[in-house]
């Protein structure tokens, strides 16, 4: 199984990506797709557009490390992560995670794990256009807490 990881400014098609994972296979019993979408409001203020800045090279590497970790934790039969960069308007797609497995818990949990890590560890930064001007989105403690719940003692910590 070769994971698909892409950073791109163009839009993506969740259905096409999910179909790529399952085509011709009969061992997959569960497919979860998560699509993150640009909203018109954030923490009480309006958002007319946003620009996603990223760190080329590191973004791919960091996502690949978390995909590897997901594959160590769950028996995945397919993984796709696509993160867009550039300017987006409310309603536009931002990020896609697709996971495929024999059983549903592996697919659900790995997709949620990947999203929690993308939020807090992948080098992307959102710059919003708001009615009153521009501003960088601040990181949320809730996102750190969400990523933190996946932490576990490393088996090799004492090695």
């Amino acid at each position, binding site marked *: 199984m070769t994971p698909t990881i892409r950073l791109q400014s163009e839009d993506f098609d969740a259905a096409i990506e999910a179909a790529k994972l399952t085509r011709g296979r009969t061992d997959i019993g569960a497919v979860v797709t998560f699509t*993150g979408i640009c909203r018109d409001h954030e923490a009480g203020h309006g958002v007319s557009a946003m620009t*996603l*800045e*990223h*760190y080329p*090279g*590191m973004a791919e*590497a*960091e996502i690949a490390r978390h995909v590897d970790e997901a594959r160590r934790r769950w028996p995945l039969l397919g993984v796709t992560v696509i*993160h867009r960069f550039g300017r987006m308007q409310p309603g536009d797609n*931002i*990020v896609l995670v697709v996971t495929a497995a024999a059983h549903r818990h592996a697919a659900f949990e790995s997709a949620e794990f990947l*999203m929690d890590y*993308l*939020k*807090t*560890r*992948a*080098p*992307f*930064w*959102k*710059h919003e256009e708001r009615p009153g001007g521009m501003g*960088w*989105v*601040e*990181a949320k403690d809730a*996102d750190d807490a969400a990523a933190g719940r996946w932490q576990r003692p490393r088996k090799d910590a004492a090695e």
Partner: protein
Amino acid sequence: MRLKYFAWVRERVGKTDEEIVVPDHVGTVGELMDWLAGQGEEYAHAFENRKVIRAAIDHVHVKPEAAIADAREIAFFPPMTGG
């Protein structure tokens, strides 16, 4: 070594990246931030609240205690807000 800046760290420093030569007494990422903060007003502003700035060496997240001796590229940026 090459430094890279992102998001509001980039805006405050006023550049996306630069090549620098670091003095021998600067051994860690934290010490590098201290040193950079003394390199002019824009750096002082960018690094005024060092606790919120994250760093990566050669595309890997590191803590302020990380040694920079073997680094080719060090990046500074605010907490990530992707996803």
